[in-house]
C-alpha cells in the first residue's frame, strides 16, 4: 500500500513532529487560556472569550512585583555568573595549574546534583550563619548554580579558539588589555552570550532552590506556585504568553539581522 509505505519512509519525520507538538501544546493552551474568563478562582476549564486579562496584566495583587523582582535577580545573577564563569573558563583552557582535576569536579558536581539537595544544604548554611533570607540569599544561590553552566558554554567556545589569534594581536602592537578587548572578547562573545542567556533563563525560571532560600520574598515562579494552591489568575497566562512571544520575536529579529549582515558582506 502506498500510504503505508509513505508512512514507513517518513517515520522519523512523523515521530519528530509529534514530539514537537507535545512540546508546543502547553504553550498553545497557555495562550488560549489567556483569553478565558473563568468562573471560579482557577483557570483550568474554558468558559468564554475575554480580553480582560490582557487589558489589565498587572491587575493581580503582587504579581507584577514578583515579576520585576525575578527579572532583577535574573539580571544580576547573569552578570555575576557570566563574569565569574568566563574567568574560570579562560583559566581552564589557557593555563596549566595545579589541582585541575579537583577544580573540574567542583564545577561538574553542581550539575550532577538534584536541585533539591543543593537547595536544602544551602539553606542549612544560611540558617547556621543566621543570614537574613531574601533577595541576597536568592542571588547568591542563583549565581552558584548558574556558574557551572556558564563555564561549560564559554569553555566550549574558548577551546575552539585559535590561540595564535591572540599571539597575532600581541605581535601587531596590541598590549594585554588591547588584545583582550579587540580580539579575545569579540571572538569569545558568542560563547559568553550563550552562557549568559542560559544563566538568565535558568535563574528567571528557577523554583526549587529559590523556594528554599527566599524566606518571605516572592519571585515570579513562587507566585505561580502559590497561586496553584490559592487560585490561578488569568494574568499568569498573559505573562507566560507575552514571554513566549517576546522570545520568539527576539530570535526572529536576530536571525533577520544576521541574514542581512551576511548578505551585505557579499
Amino acid at each position, binding site marked *: 500500500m502506498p500510504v503505508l509505505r509513505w508512512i514507513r519512509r517518513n517515520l522519523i519525520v512523523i515521530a519528530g513532529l509529534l514530539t514537537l507538538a507535545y512540546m508546543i501544546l502547553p504553550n498553545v493552551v497557555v495562550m488560549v487560556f489567556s483569553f478565558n474568563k473563568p468562573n471560579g478562582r482557577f483557570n483550568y476549564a474554558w468558559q468564554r472569550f475575554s480580553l480582560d486579562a490582557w487589558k489589565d496584566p498587572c491587575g493581580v495583587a503582587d504579581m507584577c512585583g514578583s515579576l520585576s523582582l525575578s527579572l532583577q535577580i535574573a539580571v544580576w545573577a547573569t552578570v555575576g555568573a557570566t563574569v565569574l564563569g568566563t574567568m574560570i573558563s579562560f583559566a581552564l583552557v589557557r593555563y596549566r595549574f595545579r589541582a585541575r582535576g579537583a577544580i573540574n569536579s567542583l564545577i561538574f558536581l553542581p550539575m550532577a546534583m538534584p536541585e533539591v539537595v543543593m537547595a536544602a544544604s544551602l539553606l542549612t548554611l544560611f540558617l547556621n550563619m543566621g543570614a537574613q533570607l531574601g533577595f541576597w540569599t536568592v542571588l547568591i544561590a542563583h549565581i552558584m548554580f548558574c556558574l557551572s553552566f556558564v563555564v561549560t558554554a564559554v569553555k566550549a567556545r574558548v577551546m575552539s579558539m*585559535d590561540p*595564535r*589569534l591572540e*599571539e*597575532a*594581536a*600581541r*605581535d*601587531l*602592537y*596590541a*598590549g594585554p588589555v*588591547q*588584545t583582550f578587548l*579587540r*580580539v579575545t572578547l*569579540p*571572538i569569545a562573545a558568542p560563547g559568553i552570550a550563550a552562557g549568559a542567556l542560559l544563566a538568565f533563563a535558568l535563574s528567571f525560571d528557577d523554583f526549587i532552590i529559590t523556594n528554599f532560600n527566599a524566606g518571605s520574598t516572592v519571585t515570579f515562579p513562587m507566585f505561580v506556585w502559590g497561586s496553584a494552591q490559592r487560585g490561578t489568575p488569568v494574568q499568569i497566562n498573559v505573562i507566560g504568553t507575552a514571554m513566549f512571544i517576546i522570545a520568539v520575536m527576539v530570535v526572529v529579529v536576530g536571525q533577520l539581522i544576521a541574514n542581512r549582515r551576511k548578505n551585505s*558582506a*557579499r
Partner: protein
Amino acid sequence: MTQQQTGGDVRLTGISKTYGSFAAVKPLDLTVPQGSFFALLGASGCGKTTTLRMIAGLEEATTGTVSLGGQDITGLPPYKRPVNTVFQSYALFPHLDISENVAFGLRRRGIRSVKKQVDEMLELVQLGDFAKRKPHQLSGGQQQRVAVARALINHPQVLLLDEPLGALDLKLRRQMQLELKRIQTEVGITFIHVTHDQEEAMTMADTVAVMNGGRVEQLGAPADLYENPRTTFVANFLGTSNLIEGEVVSADTDIVVAAGGGKLRLPTDRCTAPTVNGGKLLLGVRPEKISLAHADDADVIADGRNRVTGRIVDSSFIGVSTQYVVESPAGKALQVYEQNIERDARLTPGAEVVLHWNPAHTFGLDAAQDIDAGVETVEDAA
C-alpha cells in the same frame, strides 16, 4: 634601499628554550644579516618554530639574548618589538574584514588615517578588491597574502614567517614562493622563514640554517649546503645522498678509500672529517652526479673516475629523468638519476651495471654518525 639603513642584523646569542626537562632549543648563536632572506629548515620538532617565536617575543628564552641592530630586545614583549610575524595558518582575525585586519597594527600604534596605507599594501599583494570581505570568504592563497600584508604594513625591521605556505597546495605554493621572493626584494626587509620543505627553503632563501634536535647542524647558501653537507643529517635531509662506508687507504691531495671491493677517491678539501689511514670514512655522492653504464660497456668508461659495480633492482620513469635503485657491495640501495636523453634499453631491473662519477663530486663525512639521519620515512611524511 632606504629601509635597509633603518634595520640591522638579528643576533641570537646563546639562546635556548627548555620546557621542563625537554630542551626544545639548545643554546645556539645565530646572526641573520640585515636585508637577507634567511630560512630555518628542519623536520617538525627540531626547534625551528621555537627559535622564531623567541625572536618574535612570543616565547620567553630560557637563556641567552636576542638583539636587533645592536639593541638587546630579549626582555621586550612582542607588542614592543619592531618585528612582525606571518603565522602558520595565518591567524587572521575572523571578526574583522580584510582592511581592518591589515590596519590592525597601525591602529594599535595610534595611527588614525590608515586608509591610504592599507590600500597601497593591498595593492602590493594584489588584493585591492577584497578589502571589505571577511577572512573566511577568501581562498587559502588570498588569506596568505593578507597575512603578509598585515605584517608588512608596519614596516617591521624583520618579518618572521612560520611555515607560511604549509596549508597551500603544491602549485599555489610554487607561485607564492616566487611572490614572497618578489615582495622581499621590493621592500628589502629581512625575512626569516621557517619551513620543513627543503625545496622551499632552497628556492627562496639566500642563507639556510638546517636545524636538527634543537641545534643548527649547518648554515650556508643553498648550493653550498647541497654540495658540501657536513653531516649525514644534512646530506640526507637536503635532497638525497648515497652514503658509502669505507676504510681510508691513503690521504694525500686525494683521499683513497677502500669500499665495496674497490677503491674510491675524493679531493682532500671535500672531506670535513679527520682522516687516519685505516680509519673509517663515509663517502657521499648525489644521485644525479652518477652515470650509469651497462656492464658490457665497462671498458669504455674513462680512467680516473670512481666506479662501483652493481645490479639494477628497481627503476622508475619520472619523465625528465629515470630513477634507478642499484644493489652493490658498496651499498644496498644506491640511487641514480639519469637524464632521459638517450635511454639505454638494456638498463632494466636485473641488469648488471657500473656506476661511475667524477671523484671531485664526492664528499667525505665522519663515519661515527648515524648513516640514516635525516632520511625521510613514510611516518615522517604523514
